[in-house]
């Protein structure tokens, strides 16, 4: 308590110096006067009295000094003194200060921005209760990697697992809200009753689902998202308990989720982040067919259970499943557990870490540049420092002062970096790739602020320490005697090393950015198997009471196609169940085999299944390799036919044409169908631009009726009038049919390139900053060396050296560290670029062209930066140069 009080009082003392000093003076004077008076009373003369009083009192100045030290905080006092001095120095050299702060702001700001993303994506835990124990449980199949689970699997897991607290599951579907007002499509989550309570602590209104609400064949209870509750029901607080219509059936609203609730699932798991409503699974999961895999399973580990232990447990459960169910043993079913957060960021982590590494190189270059500036300033300040040392300043004291200056500088840089960084954060956020979409927004949070502060302090020490140590190690006598010329050559070496380092680091960044930019270029060139130009897509959901029979669905879509095509400017209209690069609906993939395949070859290979009507391939400009598209008569007669892609055709019939062959496929309602191949189409990239994940099978819509379909409309009409045209035609056929998901096909393709665009844009910006900094670094060192050698150049000229010789000498000397830097950078790049390999496409990590280009670019920039100072050297007037001091 009394210590705190002392500290507070001392802190106050810092600011009350002037009045404090005056008071102390008055008090001491009063004391002395009293002593003198007393001495005079004892009979001394005034002189004697004064002298005796002084003796009795002791050193006045010492007493004052001790008093002042007691009053303030000596550490802070010294700091304030150094800061005041530093401010004065900076104000005297505004050019130097501005350049240094701008350089640091670039370096630190770039780090702040990237760190804000790293923090929000990789470091922050997901916004769920006990998020660190949440995992995703995937089913794995012999050939197909990981996928969703079936109902019996989930039930089995719940019964057997000891290490998991609970399991929940979701299947993302679509539904339509009908009844009062405009019909509206909703993203509907079919969930196990505990799913929502695993991801949210409480509802905003009402309650979560109850266990007994599952398996009632048609859902009776529904939970709404905050967004749906607000915009459709006007945030009505009395909605709980009321009945609304979902797909034409009445359901009771039992709860509303909190406003910030969203579902964060790994990319490619077909669970979109924003779902509108949730209903319990209508089936009793235990009675599902064991090979109907559609449930995305999450599990919460018990406290203390680890992922490896859980994996071991799941391995043994999978073995039990295989021995109890023949289907599972045929599929070679396995179970895999991964932490939810790790799985969500799996795709963005490498890119983010690469960018984080790159941006720290940028900071190093910035520090090297500022160190360079400080070194040239240190030479100018040598006299001042020598004088300080001469009058008794200890070396540590001088170093402390110089470090205070550099840290102050870097803190200014850090402050400017916060401004720059928050601007850059917005840029990053607008560029963010799909894998980051569902995560928290980046913001200038406390950890980001702390990171920036720490970075500022560290860089202040980093670039300040070497110049400080160098300047203070001077020999006093030498430096007082000499005015600096001979020292200059020796001092040039650390500056050259800094240039070499800058060029080498810049090389690495340039090479990396070059490779990433080439990746983006390859992605822009890559043929996705279709032409997205002038194709508009909309989504339609033909569900509810009007569409109880397959015929009703077929009739609706066929009429819509016919009516739309009759309009001027419409080239073709396709109908498809799944658009390429659209991850909002659960992917539909299943086993297929040729009709005559032996039992052992069935249930081994999967393909993406799509349901379509004639016109889809034409609207996307897909290429037929063999055979033909579906025709009107095929639809009318509901013929057992199918179109496959080249992947399926060559895998199933490697040595003969697929046309006319029979295939066993699954029709989307877990019923197998034997169909004849009538066409082979070139693979349409659907999940990524670069990987063919699976083969593709296109079923004829009447044989695989689905409610949720998309239109692909190729036309020459501008998109706004096209959309209203489509809306009009839909309303004419069914005034209750919602039209949603209106998006040009180009946007889907662009989405697939987002991740590459993100990394390459950022890497490009970093490389540009690095080159700019390296350029200024080289320039400043070269011009400084010309300045230092002015006298020597004068002598050479006086002795008959030609300007060309002087030019060559300066160029040679200034380019030497650049060349060494290029060499070191080359070696570093060859060592480091393989780390990029998983981010690259269409270019090898050691691509000689890219690396050579980086070298040549840096060399050219070095030449450019040295040219001006070298030319200045040739234009020196020898007389003036000789006199220069």
């Amino acid at each position: 308590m009394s210590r705190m009080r002392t500290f507070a009082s001392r802190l106050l003392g810092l600011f009350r110096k002037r009045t404090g000093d005056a008071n102390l003076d008055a008090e001491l004077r009063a004391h002395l006067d009293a002593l003198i008076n007393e001495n005079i009373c004892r009979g001394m003369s005034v002189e004697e009295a004064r002298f005796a009083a002084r003796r009795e009192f002791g050193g006045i100045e010492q007493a004052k000094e001790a008093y002042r030290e007691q009053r303030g905080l000596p550490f802070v006092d010294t700091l304030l003194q150094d800061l005041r001095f530093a401010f004065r120095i900076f104000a005297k050299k505004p050019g130097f200060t501005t350049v240094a702060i701008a350089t640091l702001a670039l370096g630190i700001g770039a780090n702040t921005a990237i760190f804000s993303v790293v923090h929000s994506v990789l470091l922050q835990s997901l916004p769920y209760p006990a998020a660190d124990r949440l995992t995703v449980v995937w089913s794995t199949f012999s050939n197909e990697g990981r996928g969703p689970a079936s109902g019996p699997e989930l039930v089995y897991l719940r019964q057997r697992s000891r290490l998991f607290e609970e399991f929940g599951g979701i299947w993302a579907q679509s539904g339509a809200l009908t009844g009062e007002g405009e019909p509206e499509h909703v993203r509907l989550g079919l969930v196990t009753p505990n799913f929502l309570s695993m991801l949210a602590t409480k509802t905003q209104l009402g309650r979560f689902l109850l266990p007994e609400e599952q398996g009632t064949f048609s859902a009776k209870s529904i939970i709404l998202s905050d967004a749906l509750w607000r915009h459709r029901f006007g945030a009505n607080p009395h909605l709980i308990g009321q009945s609304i219509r979902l797909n034409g059936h009445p359901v009771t609203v039992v709860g509303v989720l909190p406003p910030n609730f969203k579902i964060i699932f790994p990319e490619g798991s077909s669970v979109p982040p924003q779902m509108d409503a949730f209903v319990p699974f209508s089936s009793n999961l235990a009675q599902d067919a064991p090979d109907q895999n559609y449930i995305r399973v999450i599990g919460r580990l018990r406290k203390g259970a680890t992922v490896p232990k859980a994996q071991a447990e799941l391995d043994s459960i999978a073995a039990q499943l295989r021995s109890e169910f023949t289907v599972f043993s045929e599929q070679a079913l396995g179970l895999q557990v991964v932490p939810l957060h790790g799985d969500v960021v799996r795709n963005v982590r490498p890119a983010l870490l690469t960018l984080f590494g790159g941006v720290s190189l940028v900071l190093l270059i910035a520090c090297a540049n500022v160190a360079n500036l400080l070194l040239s300033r240190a030479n100018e300040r040598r006299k001042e420092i020598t004088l300080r040392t001469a009058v008794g300043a200890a070396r540590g004291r001088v170093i402390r002062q110089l470090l205070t200056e550099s840290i102050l500088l870097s803190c200014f840089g850090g402050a400017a970096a916060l401004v720059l960084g928050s601007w850059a954060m917005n840029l990053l956020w607008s560029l963010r790739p799909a894998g980051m979409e569902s995560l928290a927004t980046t913001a200038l949070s406390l950890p980001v602020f702390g990171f920036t502060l720490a970075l500022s302090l560290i860089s202040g020490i980093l670039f300040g320490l070497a110049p400080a140590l160098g300047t203070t190690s001077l020999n006093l006598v030498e430096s007082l005697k000499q005015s600096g010329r001979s020292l200059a050559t020796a001092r040039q070496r650390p500056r050259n090393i800094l240039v070499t380092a800058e060029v080498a680091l810049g090389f690495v960044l340039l090479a990396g950015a070059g490779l990433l930019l080439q990746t983006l270029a390859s992605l822009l060139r890559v043929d996705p198997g279709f032409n997205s130009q002038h194709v508009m897509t909309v989504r339609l959901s033909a569900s509810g009471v009007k569409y109880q029979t397959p015929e009703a669905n077929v009739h609706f879509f066929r009429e819509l196609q016919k009516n739309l095509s009759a309009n001027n400017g419409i080239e073709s209209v396709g109908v498809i169940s799944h658009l390429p690069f659209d991850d909002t609906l659960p992917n539909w993939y299943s086993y297929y085999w040729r009709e005559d395949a032996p039992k052992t070859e069935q249930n081994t290979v999967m393909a993406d299944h799509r349901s379509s009507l004639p016109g889809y391939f034409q609207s996307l400009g897909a290429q037929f390799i063999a055979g033909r598209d579906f025709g009107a008569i095929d639809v009318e007669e509901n013929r057992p036919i199918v179109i496959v892609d080249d992947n399926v055709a060559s895998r199933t019939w490697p040595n003969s044409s697929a046309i006319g062959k029979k295939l066993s496929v699954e029709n989307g309602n877990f019923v197998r169908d034997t169909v004849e191949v009538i066409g082979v189409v070139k693979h349409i990239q659907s999940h990524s631009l670069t990987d063919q994940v699976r083969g593709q099978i296109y079923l004829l819509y009447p044989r695989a009726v689905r409610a949720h379909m998309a239109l692909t409309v190729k036309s020459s009409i501008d998109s706004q009038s096209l959309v209203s045209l489509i809306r009009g035609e839909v309303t004419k056929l069914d005034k209750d049919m919602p039209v949603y998901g209106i998006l040009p096909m180009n946007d889907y393709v662009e989405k697939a390139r987002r991740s590459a665009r993100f990394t390459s844009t950022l890497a490009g910006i970093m490389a540009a900053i690095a080159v700019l900094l390296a350029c200024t670094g080289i320039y400043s060192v070269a011009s400084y060396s010309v300045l230092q050698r002015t006298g020597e150049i004068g002598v050479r000229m006086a002795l008959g050296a030609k300007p060309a010789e002087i030019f060559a000498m300066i160029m040679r000397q200034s380019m030497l560290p650049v060349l060494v830097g290029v060499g070191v950078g080359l070696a570093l790049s060859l060592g480091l670029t393989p780390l990029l390999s998983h981010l690259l496409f269409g270019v090898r990590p050691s691509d000689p062209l890219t690396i050579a280009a980086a070298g040549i670019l840096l060399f050219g920039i070095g030449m450019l930066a040295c040219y001006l100072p070298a030319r200045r050297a040739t234009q020196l007037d020898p007389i003036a140069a000789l006199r220069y001091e």
Partner: protein
Amino acid sequence: MPLAPPRGEVLQGTLDLIVLKTLDALGPLHGYGIAQRVQQVSEDLLKLNQGTLYPGLLRLEQRGWITSKWGISDNNRKAKYYSLTRSGRKQLATETATWERMAGVISRLLGAEGA
């Protein structure tokens, strides 16, 4: 940084105790008065540079044991008067107790050895 040790190796704690005791016994006093009293009580055994008293006074004030106020001295001059606070009185009591215990121990020890 700490208060320079007074002549005669007076420990800081001892000086604190003396100052507190002085203020307790005589009421508010200025620095000069305290210095006189210290020398008087110690019978000039503790010869201290009177200037060194002031950092010590400041320290006691910072701890909240004494307060100061400007006033007018007997010979009509402006002077800063120090007085004991409540927590200073408490501090004096504990320090006195500690000191007496200590002195008891020392004298017993010395007495035992002398015998």
